[in-house]
């Protein structure tokens, strides 16, 4: 097609031949230029089309290998280069690998190049396109390619983010003869850019896919059942654990929506926890109270009725997944199967309930058995006691005594067994009541004094001065421990003494003036008996063990007493142990400690502590062959402010008196080896022992004979004690209260009430009953005394019951326990002494009332008779308020337990 105008054609026809030739050449040149331009346009179109196609391919193709192949193929077509190659550099690699080869260069696939090595390496190194016209003569050629394979080569870098990530190259045959031009190189560069972008995308996509795969793997192998759903609530992950939990395979659940995932749990399509993650916070609190929200995580426990055919308990947590823009992109839920644990919880609760029920049953059994057993036991003991009070032949008496003793022993064993069971069952409860410590010790001694005196043993009680008068605790159980130890001591001792002492356990004492702090008390029961061999010491406290079998035969007992005593002391916060050399005569010492707060309120005994105005400064002579007794008496008198002098030798005492020593009074022990108390008393009188003048009224008159107090054990003396020799006779173990009363009686000038009786004096204390509540039984038949006593008691706030004779008294005690019995000694039917003996025999120690004798007789020995019968104290008749107050103050309420134990 001609684009020149016709004017040139006319010039050609009008001009000279030279001009015509030049013009023809010009035209030919113009035509050639014109064609070249046309060719260029065509080529450019082709290139554009190719680029367009490739770009399209980029969008549709994601596999980078496919993409690169498409690109290089198209480029090879366009540039008329039958051979080509693509090297790619993996991230972090030190060599480029040939991924794609075209034509003759297919053989390059799999080979690697280092930077600078060969064409690819060079381009990699420089980052710039490389055009080689003749490869065979290129200095950098590699040996791998034999000569004559390729001629011209063009290679450009694939760059991502400015970094070379590969190279793409084309080559022509050596025979083609054409090298690659600038335009062709530029086109290849465009292709390379596209390839690089495509590579990036592909890599990203692979990476994403790889990540996705890894994530899926992780989820799949999580130990807890987990599911993931997309933003359309379709399941996109359902791991193995979930398959196991539900029995539904992943392939059956993946891609499913419409609450399909609820079916394995609930049997129906319904929203589950994972569906709730989309709900705003406000809706939550109202509808789903059992679900908690912590930050973005929901959690809750739920009962699922349909799990694998049965039901179960699950704990689920769920949270939303969000994309990079923060939009909701799905949710994930993790489940923990609680069914087993719930089951275990239920079973545990059931086991606990069963154990509780068993313990209750055990306690009820113990309580019932306790009552069932004790009732006939009491009958046996009581009846045999009554039998012994009647006229019996010697044989009959012996039989009856055996019955009674066996009954006592059996009752002890039964009580021990019941106590032991109770302690082992953890059902032993200790009272916390204030009580008089001295009285507890003295009453424990009371229970063994008969047996001790029969064996000729001395009994004594020593309380250190720092020990509190009254403590808070369980008096009955403490007495039980003491009685157990004292009984054992007396049982295993044939001669000498048994002493119980109390001191403060200095290791644990603390001082705190504001509130009562538990005081640790250390008790010791010492004896001079047969002792315990060292190798048997540890076995002692075990239940049912005796020191050895022979002792059981000789001494009796089940071996439970010590086990119970030890456990009781432990329940009281202490420990128990024994020391013994195992040498007969050296005996044993049983130690135990308890913790007990000092009682702040317990009136009554305070007059026994501290100096007494009546006794202050009075001098006393003590003669007793027992070191222990001397020490106790001396300390006691000193604490009252007296001035005692003690000796174990009657002769020494006589010597003192002969040398002019004066004493306000003397305490003489009856049984002494050198000279007994009676002989000594007579000798002292004979040497003119006289009293220190009491006051000025005595001045000028002849001094009165020193009052003498006789100390004797129960059991009587061989002969009559000359009347008038002793002012007072006291029995051992000596109670501090008895001594105190006797002493103050001596020095207060109080005479026996067969002279002018002192008037019923003193103002009644109306509050006493509130401070010290007591259930009182008045056993008195004479209406005048009855009325008076009731009235005085009422004025103190006590409402007492009345019995008119011994039998009625016992009947009353049968009906209910009393803390105190005011017992008139002389009553019809059964007098007070008989009634007292019966009461002591019949009821267990825990239920024994305190029995106060009301006696008008102050004759020598009368009071002692009362004490021997088992009475605890006495008041004189007619009743006086002050004596009543004093006697009641020494009482304490029985531990109140719902009977039976």
């Amino acid at each position, binding site marked *: 097609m001609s684009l020149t105008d016709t004017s040139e054609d006319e010039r050609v026809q009008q001009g000279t031949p030279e001009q015509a030739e030049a013009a023809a050449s010009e035209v030919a040149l113009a035509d050639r230029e014109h064609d070249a331009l046309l060719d260029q346009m065509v080529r450019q179109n082709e290139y554009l089309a190719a680029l367009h196609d490739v770009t399209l391919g980029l969008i549709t193709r994601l596999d980078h290998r496919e993409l690169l192949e498409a690109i290089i193929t198209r480029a090879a077509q366009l540039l008329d280069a039958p051979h080509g190659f693509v090297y790619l550099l993996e991230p972090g690699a030190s060599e480029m690998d040939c991924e794609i080869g075209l034509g003759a260069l297919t053989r390059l696939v799999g080979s690697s190049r280092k930077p600078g090595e060969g064409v690819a390496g060079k381009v990699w190194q420089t980052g710039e396109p490389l055009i080689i016209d003749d490869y065979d003569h290129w200095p950098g050629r590699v040996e791998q390619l034999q000569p004559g394979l390729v001629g011209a080569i063009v290679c450009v870098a694939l760059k991502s983010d400015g970094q070379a990530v590969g190279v793409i190259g084309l080559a022509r045959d050596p025979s083609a003869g054409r090298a690659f031009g600038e335009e062709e190189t530029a086109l290849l560069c465009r292709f390379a850019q596209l390839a690089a972008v495509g590579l990036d995308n592909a890599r990203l996509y692979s990476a994403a896919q790889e990540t996705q795969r890894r994530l899926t793997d992780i989820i799949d192998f999580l130990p807890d059942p987990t599911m993931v759903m997309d933003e359309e609530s379709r399941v996109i992950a359902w791991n193995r654990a979930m398959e196991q939990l539900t029995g539904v395979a992943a392939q059956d659940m993946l891609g499913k929506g419409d609450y399909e995932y609820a079916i394995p749990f609930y049997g129906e399509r319904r929203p589950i926890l994972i569906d709730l993650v989309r709900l705003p916070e406000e809706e939550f609190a109202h509808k789903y109270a059992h679900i908690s929200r912590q930050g973005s995580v929901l959690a809750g426990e739920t009962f699922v009725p349909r799990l694998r055919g049965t039901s179960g308990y699950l704990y689920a947590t769920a949270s939303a997944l969000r994309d990079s823009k923060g939009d909701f992109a799905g949710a994930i839920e993790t489940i923990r199967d609680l069914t087993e644990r719930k089951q275990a919880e239920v079973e545990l609760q059931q086991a606990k309930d069963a154990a509780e029920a068993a313990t209750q049953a055990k306690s009820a059994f113990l309580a019932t058995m306790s009552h069932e057993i004790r009732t006939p036991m009491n009958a046996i003991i009581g009846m045999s006691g009554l039998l012994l009070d009647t006229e019996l032949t010697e044989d009959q008496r012996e039989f009856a005594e055996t019955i009674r003793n066996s009954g006592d022993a059996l009752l002890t064993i039964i009580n021990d067994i019941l106590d032991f069971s109770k302690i082992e069952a953890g059902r032993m409860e200790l009272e916390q009541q204030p009580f008089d410590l001295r009285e507890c010790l003295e009453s424990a001694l009371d229970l063994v004094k008969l047996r001790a005196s029969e064996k000729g043993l001395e009994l004594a009680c020593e309380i250190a001065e720092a020990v509190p008068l009254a403590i808070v605790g369980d008096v009955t159980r403490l007495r039980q421990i003491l009685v157990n130890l004292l009984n054992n001591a007396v049982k295993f001792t044939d001669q000498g003494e048994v002493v119980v002492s109390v001191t403060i356990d200095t290791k644990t004492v603390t001082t705190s003036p504001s509130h009562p702090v538990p005081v640790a008390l250390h008790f010791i029961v010492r004896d001079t008996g047969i002792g315990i061999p060292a190798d048997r010491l540890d076995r002692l406290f075990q239940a049912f063990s005796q020191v050895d079998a022979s002792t059981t035969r000789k001494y009796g007992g089940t071996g439970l007493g010590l086990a119970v005593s030890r456990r009781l002391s432990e329940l009281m916060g202490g420990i128990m142990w024994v020391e013994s050399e195992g040498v007969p005569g050296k005996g044993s010492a049983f130690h135990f400690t308890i913790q007990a707060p000092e009682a702040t309120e317990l009136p009554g005994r305070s007059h026994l502590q501290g100096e007494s105005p009546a006794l202050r400064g009075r001098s006393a002579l003590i003669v007793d062959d027992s070191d222990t007794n001397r020490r106790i008496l001396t300390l006691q008198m000193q604490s009252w402010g007296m001035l005692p002098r003690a000796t174990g030798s009657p002769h020494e005492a006589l010597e003192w008196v002969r040398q002019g020593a004066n004493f306000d009074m003397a305490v003489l022990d009856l049984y002494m080896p050198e000279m007994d108390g009676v002989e000594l008393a007579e000798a002292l009188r004979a040497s003119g022992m006289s009293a220190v003048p009491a006051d000025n009224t005595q001045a000028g008159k002849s001094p009165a004979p020193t009052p003498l107090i006789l100390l004797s054990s129960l059991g009587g003396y061989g002969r009559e004690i000359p009347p008038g020799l002793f002012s007072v006779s006291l029995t051992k173990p000596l109670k501090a209260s008895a001594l105190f009363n006797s002493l103050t009686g001596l020095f207060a000038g109080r005479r026996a009430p067969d002279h*002018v009786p002192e008037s019923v004096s003193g103002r009644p204390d109306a509050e006493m009953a509130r401070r010290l509540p007591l259930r009182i039984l008045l056993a008195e038949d*004479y209406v005048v005394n009855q009325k008076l006593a009731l009235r005085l008691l009422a004025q103190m706030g006590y409402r007492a019951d009345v019995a008119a004779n011994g039998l009625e008294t016992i009947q009353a005690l049968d009906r209910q326990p009393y803390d105190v019995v005011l017992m008139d000694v*002389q009553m019809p039917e059964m007098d007070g002494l008989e009634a007292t003996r019966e009461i002591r025999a019949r009821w267990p120690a825990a239920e024994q009332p305190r029995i106060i004798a009301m006696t008008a007789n102050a004759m020598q020995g009368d009071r002692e008779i009362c004490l021997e019968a088992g009475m605890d104290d006495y008041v004189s008749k007619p009743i006086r308020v002050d004596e009543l107050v004093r006697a009641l103050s020494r009482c304490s309420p029985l531990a109140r337990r719902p009977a039976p134990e």
Partner: protein
Amino acid sequence: MTEAEIIDQRTLDGLLESLGGDADFLRELVGSYLDSTPGLFAAMRQAVTTGDGAGLQRAAHTLKTGSASMGALALAAQCKQLEEKGRSGELDGAEANIDIAAAAYEDVARTLRYRVQVS
């Protein structure tokens, strides 16, 4: 015997004081004493008749304590003698002692009624 010796006023006053000054109750108490004493005398006579030393001892002891609390100290002393007789079992002449005690009681009863205004 003068009135002062029949009833020891100090004793009676002390008794009233111990009752918190309740004269009505004192009257009641005295009434009980006066009501029960004849029975005790009967018991004592009966005991002597039957030779029951223990019975005499008991009744005499009871009257002794009651009389003592009322301040009838002389009567109480006589009762003590009777008590001793009963205890020892030597009942000879006990009848006479009871008569003397009974006479003493007449005085006591009269005096008490007057002092305490018991009808």
